[in-house]
């Protein structure tokens, strides 16, 4: 028998998808039964109370969580998010129910041994409820009390070789795709740079001094599997400068039905024979492809790296060999309004250790944003407020055609007086000689 009746939550279980309510009920039952004889360090029935307070929130149409509080373990300004319930008498198990953010491994590769250790630790010292993974990518451990925080951090850092992630006005835990470890589309080693920058910027990750949150995300190719372009303050999207490599025999194989398009991804239904004109050439957004005597031709200088043709025919088409990444800045995806995509800042940079060129851009941006950014202002908002030109000055990057969506449209690059021969002043009499009033 559940501690609290939850008719509204029960309804959430009735849909076709797996429900977090069922998961919570399962964990509540598991804690009540305690088959492994765990000496729970937070209330055994905390998950019951969590369900109870959520039910009450649905009933009242308002939250019963208070906002914010303690933030971490000694010396860290992030990684722990204080959460307190405003109905502690009714739900004592969740009166103090803090969230811990734990840095996820690069590409989210785990060993089962690590996951078991993590779950055992969290069952012992926390609620047992996890969120794998939060939007930033971290392992989110939901619900523990203040005395457990240092204990958990010690265990994570000393015995599991694991650090807390970022929260608050910090650099957030950098996130990456699996990159070249398993993906043939990857234009650079996402995990290598993600790890390097995480180590390099430990201070920014753990000790808050930014105006607001700041996110790096690394996508190995323009498929953008971690959606960096839509949400990272600086997104690193893999790209290449030379030509897409074409294997004409494999193209013929796709046309002849020898290979399934899209790697066989849409095989659940009969879509008819593969039609290269309709499914590849006709869908190219820049119309830079055509068939010539059974051969596929690409005008590479028109290609915008949309990846569609490569995704459809991965055996026949491959990313070029001159690889690197584009850096885009200012994206954000807030819950309410104001979502913004990244703007291209660096069209192409080689991604090679020790990444000095990239770090120079990052640090130029931070210096500008830390000085000019208002409290709770994301980089994208500062760029809009002060202009893209200011960002170019801060990063010592010259304006270039790739910064402009189309000529004579919304020009944000303005001449300065010192850049113009003779400045703004001129001899009016000399001008009038050639130009009547």
């Amino acid at each position, binding site marked *: 028998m559940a501690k609290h009746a939850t008719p509204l939550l029960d309804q959430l279980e009735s849909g076709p998808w797996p429900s977090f309510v069922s998961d919570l009920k399962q964990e509540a039952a598991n804690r009540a039964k305690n088959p492994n004889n765990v000496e729970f360090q937070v209330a055994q029935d905390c998950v019951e109370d969590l369900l109870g307070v959520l039910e009450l929130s649905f009933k009242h149409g308002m939250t019963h969580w208070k*906002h*914010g*509080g*303690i*933030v*971490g373990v000694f*010396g860290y*300004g*992030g990684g722990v*998010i*204080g959460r*307190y319930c405003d109905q502690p008498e009714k739900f004592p198990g969740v009166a*103090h129910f803090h*969230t811990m953010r734990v840095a996820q491994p690069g590409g989210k590769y785990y060993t089962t041994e690590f996951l078991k250790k993590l779950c055992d630790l969290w069952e012992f010292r926390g609620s047992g409820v996890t969120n794998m993974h939060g939007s930033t990518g971290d392992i989110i451990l939901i619900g523990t009390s*203040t005395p457990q925080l240092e204990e958990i951090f010690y265990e994570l850092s000393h015995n599991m070789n694991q650090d807390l992630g970022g*929260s*608050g*006005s*910090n650099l957030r835990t950098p996130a990456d795709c699996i990159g070249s470890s398993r993906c043939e589309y990857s234009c650079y080693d996402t995990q290598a740079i993600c790890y390097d920058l995480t180590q390099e910027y430990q*201070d920014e990750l753990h*000790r*808050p*001094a*930014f*105006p*607001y*949150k700041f996110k790096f995300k690394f996508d190995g190719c323009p498929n953008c599997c971690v959606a960096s372009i839509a949400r990272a303050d600086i997104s690193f999207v893999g790209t290449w400068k030379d030509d897409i490599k074409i294997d004409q025999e494999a193209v013929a194989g796709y046309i002849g039905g020898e290979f399934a398009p899209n790697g066989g991804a849409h095989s659940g239904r009969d879509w008819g024979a593969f039609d290269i004109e309709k499914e590849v050439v006709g869908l190219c957004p820049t119309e830079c492809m055509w068939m010539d005597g059974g051969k596929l031709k690409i005008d590479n200088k028109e290609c915008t790296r949309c990846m569609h043709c490569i995704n459809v025919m991965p055996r026949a088409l491959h990313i070029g060999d001159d690889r690197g990444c584009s850096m885009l800045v200012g994206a954000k995806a807030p819950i309410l309004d104001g979502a913004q995509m990244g703007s291209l800042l660096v069209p192409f940079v080689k991604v090679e250790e020790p990444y000095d060129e990239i770090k120079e851009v990052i640090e130029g941006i931070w*210096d500008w944003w*830390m*000085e000019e950014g208002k*409290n*709770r202002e994301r980089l994208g908002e500062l760029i809009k407020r002060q202009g893209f030109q200011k960002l170019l000055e801060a990063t010592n990057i010259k304006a270039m055609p790739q910064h402009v969506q189309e000529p004579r449209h919304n020009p944000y690059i303005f001449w300065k007086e010192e850049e113009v021969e003779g400045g703004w002043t001129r001899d009016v009499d000399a001008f009038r000689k050639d130009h009547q009033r």
Partner: protein
Amino acid sequence: MEYEEAKALIVEKLTKKLKTKSKFYFNDLSKILELKPRVAKKLINQLVQEGVLEYWSSGSTSMYGLPGTGKQAGAEHED
């Protein structure tokens, strides 16, 4: 600016403002110190390490305050 000078300045200014607010943005502190953010950060980190200041966070934004000040520490029995 030396550490002790920064400490005295921060404690004095923050104590003065306690009647109206107990939590401060990083920018408020660097303005009090009249230093560039990167320089101010080193001193502010040291103040936190030595317990002169403490962090507060909503989860999305971080702030700084003198330890135990404000309503929350008392209300949550964590002071």
